[in-house]
């Protein structure tokens, strides 16, 4: 029996266990939308801008650990997805984006709403396809999901000409996917595990440095076991937050440009750095030759191209992080000469030194009684949600304060545009996260600038009953840029004051949401409590100390030990 291409696409989604997609219609995908209306098991979330569909799918994928799906029309619908795709690519988020395309006969003709989206997204997708022959439709979709979720995950785009979707096809049976050219390595090489464990056994000042790969491969339990078993302090990248409990005494918090004093000092003085699913990004390393200069480096990553890209690695392990760390744990469980207490004792002077750094420069801020400190807001959010909320962020100071002060204890609870740093990510991401976890408290920690980049999604959140809480840390500035201007441009605040700003409380009301404002520290707690008790979309507008800075800060190009402190 033959079915239409659009029916086949629905069957493919079902096969892949997709039941929520984010999208926006148009002429090239109108047939597909007609089919969606007939497909009861599928929830389509109608966003108000295609960029938001992609960010929402991104966060949905992160919360669920599944492939997120977005659907848009050709031309402008497709180009509007590019920022979201690039963000997902840099953060290695599994995602499939379907774009409509003009009929095959018109491709290359500058037809109405035609763009070469496969060409445009080639450098920011893990892979992409233009389906020209209806018989390739189903195999392509299956392969796309396979590529998106395996190996180092990433976004895959499928461009669907209108006639291909309208064609009648026979639905091919599902077969295990075997690709000639793509076979990621999951299992670690036992010899390398042995070498790495020997190095760990003899290190005096080890540090675990974990990144987004730990979250992606669900390796948090294994990493936590390893850290505790060997008394190794653990620092996390922005993408790795939640990969190890932030409140554990071994946690050093985040490292890098806005990392903690003690994390950066520990990395600078360690003799063994164990990188797990992290990629030595410039925001993490600072001046590269001063990064972990005394350390032997072990690097576990599923992507061989990440290894020795920025920093020469001594013991490379190409593997799935979870499998590799699990293999290390069992190596130590078997090892005769491994004695947990002895190792703890041997590391004690190192841990003592780190405690000294923690005492000397804890993560903190100057408290004030008459103006609201943003860090205080984040701490209160943590306290009143018992550290259990899903936090998304925008970009800028708000993002760094969220990362520093909401101590993440669990994976898949923190979503931020880490690699690309997209202002406007947090709110659509919060909607995606709420769709993925309807019973969770989801908070977008936002800046007054960023929130305006996708503010139109208030309608989406209302329409799908997503009771997301937006906490705007309102400094009436493009604060992070202003901070650089303050420090490095003689306080010349070129175009970073937001002279005209909306009344966010009134704006919330205009969308049928709830708007709350706090201008004094004493109002922070009541506002958060009221928001958490409200079963609706809420904007909390926290008017904060305007020129607060994010510290510590490593100026660009400096060594991570050259931190500016509070």
């Amino acid at each position, binding site marked *: 029996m033959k079915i239409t291409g659009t029916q086949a696409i629905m069957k493919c989604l079902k096969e892949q266990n997709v039941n929520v997609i984010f999208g926006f219609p148009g002429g090239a995908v109108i047939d597909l939308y007609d089919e969606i209306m007939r497909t009861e098991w599928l929830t389509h979330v109608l966003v108000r801008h295609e960029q938001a569909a992609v960010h929402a799918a991104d966060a949905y994928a992160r919360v669920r650990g599944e492939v997120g799906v977005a659907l848009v029309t050709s031309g402008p619908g497709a180009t509007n997805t590019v920022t979201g795709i690039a963000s997902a690519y840099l953060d290695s988020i599994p995602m499939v984006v379907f774009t409509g395309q003009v009929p095959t006969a018109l491709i290359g003709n500058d037809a109405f709403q035609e763009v070469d989206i*496969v*060409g445009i997204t*080639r*450098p920011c997708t*893990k*892979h992409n396809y*233009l389906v020209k022959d209806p018989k390739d439709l189903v195999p392509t979709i299956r392969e796309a999901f396979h*590529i998106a979720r395996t190996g180092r995950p990433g976004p895959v785009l499928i461009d669907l000409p209108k006639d291909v979707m309208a064609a009648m096809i026979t639905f091919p049976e599902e077969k295990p996917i075997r*690709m*000639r*050219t*793509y076979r990621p390595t999951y299992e670690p090489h036992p010899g390398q595990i042995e070498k790495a464990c020997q190095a760990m056994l003899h290190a005096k000042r080890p540090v675990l440095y974990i990144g987004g790969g730990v979250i992606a491969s669900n390796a948090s339990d294994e990493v936590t076991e390893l850290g505790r078993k060997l008394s190794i302090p653990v620092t996390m990248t922005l993408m790795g937050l939640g990969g190890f409990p932030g409140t554990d005494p071994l946690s050093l918090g985040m490292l890098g440009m806005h990392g903690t004093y003690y994390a950066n000092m520990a990395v600078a003085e360690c003799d063994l750095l164990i990188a797990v699913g992290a990629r030595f990004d410039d925001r993490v390393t600072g001046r590269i030759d001063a990064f972990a200069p005394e350390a032997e480096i072990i690097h576990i990553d599923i*992507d*061989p*191209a990440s290894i*020795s*890209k920025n920093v*020469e690695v001594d013991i490379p392990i190409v593997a799935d992080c979870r499998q590799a760390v699990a293999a290390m744990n069992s190596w130590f469980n078997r090892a005769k000469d491994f004695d947990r207490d002895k190792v703890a004792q041997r590391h004690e002077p190192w841990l003592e030194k780190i405690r000294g750094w923690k005492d000397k420069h804890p993560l903190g801020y100057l408290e004030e009684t008459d103006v609201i400190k943003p860090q205080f807001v984040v701490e209160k959010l943590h306290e009143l949600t018992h550290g259990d909320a899903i936090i998304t962020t925008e970009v800028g100071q708000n993002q760094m304060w969220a990362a520093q002060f909401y101590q993440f204890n669990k994976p898949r609870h923190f979503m931020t545009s880490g690699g690309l740093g997209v202002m406007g990510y947090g709110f659509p991401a919060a909607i995606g996260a709420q769709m993925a976890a309807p019973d969770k408290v989801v908070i977008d920690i936002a800046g007054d600038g960023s929130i305006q980049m996708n503010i139109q999604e208030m309608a989406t959140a209302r329409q799908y009953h997503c009771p997301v809480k937006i906490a705007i840390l309102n400094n009436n500035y493009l604060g992070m840029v202003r901070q650089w201007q303050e420090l490095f441009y003689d306080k010349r605040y070129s175009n970073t004051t937001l002279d005209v700003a909306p009344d966010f409380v009134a704006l919330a009301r205009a969308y049928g949401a709830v708007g709350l404002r706090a201008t004094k520290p004493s109002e922070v707690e009541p506002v958060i409590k009221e928001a958490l008790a409200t079963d609706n979309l809420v904007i909390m507008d926290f008017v904060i100390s305007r020129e607060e800075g994010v510290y510590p800060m490593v100026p660009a190009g400096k060594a991570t030990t050259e931190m500016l402190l509070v």
Partner: protein
Amino acid sequence: MKHTISVLLQNKPGVLSRVTGLFSGRGFNIESLAVNQTLDPEVSCLTLVTTGPDSIIEQITKQLHKLIDVIKVTDMREVECVEREMALIRVKAEAATRAEVLRIVDIFRGKVVDVSPKSYAIELTGDDKKIQALIDILKPIGIQEIVRTGTIAMARAKKTP
């Protein structure tokens, strides 16, 4: 350092631009590039010559491997191989120099493929050193135009059975 890299890839539309896009996007350079079908019509062989320190060459091969359509990447520096490229050179050949040009072409085992009253077009195959040597010798006589293909390379067969 100069490296010849041989890449086997799926013969599909857009594959070449994935490779060249990778090079331009990551700031790797391409000195020459040649691509054509192999015995298996579904597979193309792309040969490219690039320069860079070992760390960059390592990144290039790893990033090429990461492309979904790439089947195999070989740095020909690590294997025994023959390398060839072809050049077409139009050189001034007037009464006084015609005989000398022919003599030189003969020494290099080149061929004259086009003749006019004032010039010869010469075809030469060889590795880049040989072609460069001919160019250097003909230069004083007067080269009018050069067109060169990219390098192609093939691993040598094992000498012992």
